[in-house]
């Protein structure tokens, strides 16, 4: 009832989940407006997956409350299940069955008649470009295909709320872009999406509001702009031809960009974090100005890139510690942070 009036897809208050001694989720408050993409950003073990599992009625909270479209996730679990879909980190389809069989199976479980389930399955496979693989067992699918069939399974009935738990972890950049396109298409039809991710650029691409969580707590929340201005607009990575000129270059950058400059182990490399004054709009402008200054001083730059702050940098700025010493959440994946090089921020805006 409160659903329509508040317009909130998800509301949680003081949500807690403990596994033995570990407080995997330690008092999370979230308010997700209906019809938006809400990003939950955090490293492995931060409690993202555990939070999603509680909201999707798969885990019982040990404390606090959570409502999905006004329904309590514990007392009215069935109501909640009728309106949400979940795509987990790992293929949440049956790997022994074919693409078609999976979709028909789930279609039948959602109450479609055999014929309707078959035609819906065929349409979805077509839309997701999986028609050719429809008769193959899912265990033979590539990573990108798995995510597609997974998301297809989640929208057999158009859900009001879709949980996407790290939908692009482990995907190559192309498949990742395709998943983003799918998410945009789903949202365009009015579905609310809760997206968990380890990658700031992913949250940036898709989400309108972002919560950063660490060790089971929300440490920052706001629109993308608010969050970014708290950590600076981005990072400039430079490689110089002559290592002897590095100190000079660092000094110039400090003045020109009002940036914190860090000298890397590599004697020709340095990194400058743009200050709070730089916004998304003028970051590139500032960076090119700095490049001009270096050129005037006769410093040859071999390689230059401007990227968004990485999750590591966001974390450093928000918490003062990096992502690696976060607590352990048995429900989060074992992927090491930054193991996927396609997400290296340096690749984003190469000069």
């Amino acid at each position, binding site marked *: 009832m409160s659903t329509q009036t508040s317009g909130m897809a998800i509301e949680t208050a003081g949500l807690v989940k403990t596994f033995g001694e570990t407080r995997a989720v330690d008092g999370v408050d979230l308010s997700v407006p209906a019809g938006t993409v809400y990003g939950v950003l955090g490293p492995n073990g931060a409690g993202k997956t555990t939070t999603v599992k509680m909201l999707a009625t798969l885990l019982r909270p040990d404390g606090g409350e959570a409502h999905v479209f006004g329904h309590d996730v514990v007392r009215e679990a069935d109501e909640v299940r*009728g309106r949400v879909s979940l795509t987990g980190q790992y293929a949440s389809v049956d*790997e022994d*069955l074919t693409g078609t069989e999976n979709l028909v*199976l789930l279609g039948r479980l959602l109450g479609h008649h055999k014929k309707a389930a078959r035609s819906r399955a065929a349409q979805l496979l077509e839309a997701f470009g999986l028609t050719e693989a429809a008769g193959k067992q899912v265990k033979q699918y590539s*990573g990108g295909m798995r995510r597609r069939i997974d998301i297809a*399974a989640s929208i057999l009935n158009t859900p009001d709320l879709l949980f996407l738990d790290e939908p692009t972890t482990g995907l190559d950049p192309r498949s990742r872009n395709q998943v983003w396109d799918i998410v945009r*298409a789903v949202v365009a039809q009015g579905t609310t999406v809760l997206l968990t991710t380890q990658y700031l650029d992913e949250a940036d691409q898709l989400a309108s509001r972002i919560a950063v969580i660490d060790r089971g707590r929300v440490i920052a929340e706001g629109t993308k702009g608010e969050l970014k201005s708290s950590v600076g607009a981005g990072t400039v990575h430079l490689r110089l031809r002559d290592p002897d000129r590095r100190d000079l270059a660092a000094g110039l950058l400090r003045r020109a960009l009002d940036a914190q400059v860090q000298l890397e182990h590599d004697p020709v490399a340095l990194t400058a974090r743009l200050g709070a004054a730089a916004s998304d709009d003028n970051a590139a402008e500032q960076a090119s100005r700095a490049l001009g200054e270096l050129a005037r001083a006769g410093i040859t730059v071999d390689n230059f890139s401007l990227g968004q702050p990485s999750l590591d940098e966001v974390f450093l700025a928000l918490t003062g510690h990096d992502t690696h010493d976060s607590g352990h959440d048995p429900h989060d994946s074992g992927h090491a942070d930054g193991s996927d090089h396609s997400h290296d921020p340096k690749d984003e805006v190469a000069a």
Partner: protein
Amino acid sequence: MSTATSTESKELAPVSAESLAALLISKERPPRPSAWSTSMTFGWRAILKIKHVPEQLFDVTAFPIMMVLMYTYLFGGALAGSPKEYIQFLLPGILVMSVVMITMYTGVSVNTDIEKGVFDRFRSLPIWRPSTMVGYLLGDALRYTIASAVMLTVGIILGYRPDGGVGGVLAGIALLVLFSFAFSWIWTMFGLMLRTEKSVMGVSMMVIFPLTFLSNVFVDPKTMPGWLQAFVNNSPITHLASAVRGLMGGDWPAAEVAWALGWAGLFVLVFGPITMRLYNRK
């Protein structure tokens, strides 16, 4: 694997945003399916799995054949004068024993399957909760039926002649499959309760061996010591074996059938709710 994967992703057709949007536009949802319908759908899943991995039928084909041959020729001469005589007594019993033993694979497959991501999806669906487990057991009931057919065929080749005819044999198998379906809830419980496949297997052996061997499957309990008779005569397996033996032999052992069905009901009533409690907490 990685090379195959990368070639596949290159050939992957693009996602069609328009057809996707057209699919998403419909917000109507079909009415919630009945418990029967979802259970049958999960049963269909079990059959699809057999279709894709037919090797898993090994335990319902080779194992039962081995059981019939082994015990007929091992004990036949000593216990009944000849294997051919003995099989008249043994076959219904060994049928019961083998099928009840096969039920324990249910626990192992539940245990390995439940860890997979697809269970999260099943558990997030608005359906009658036990249907996942019921579906499993329906698929297994098919396996039990296959095992029974295989053993009967071997038995008939070896000289078994059921006096109950086709009707009696079918009634016997139906009772056995029904009992095994009910009995399997013990294994779904262990499958969900124990952490590893190995521990499920270990515990299952501890339960199944004494329960099946300490029965009237091989010999008449009259020669056993009194304390053992007390156990054997009241064991559900003894009641079931007597009932199946009677039905296949052309009698109508009403009391034994009632006992077997009573035990079956008890198993479902006790272990069904425990299984579902564990399933909901997993």
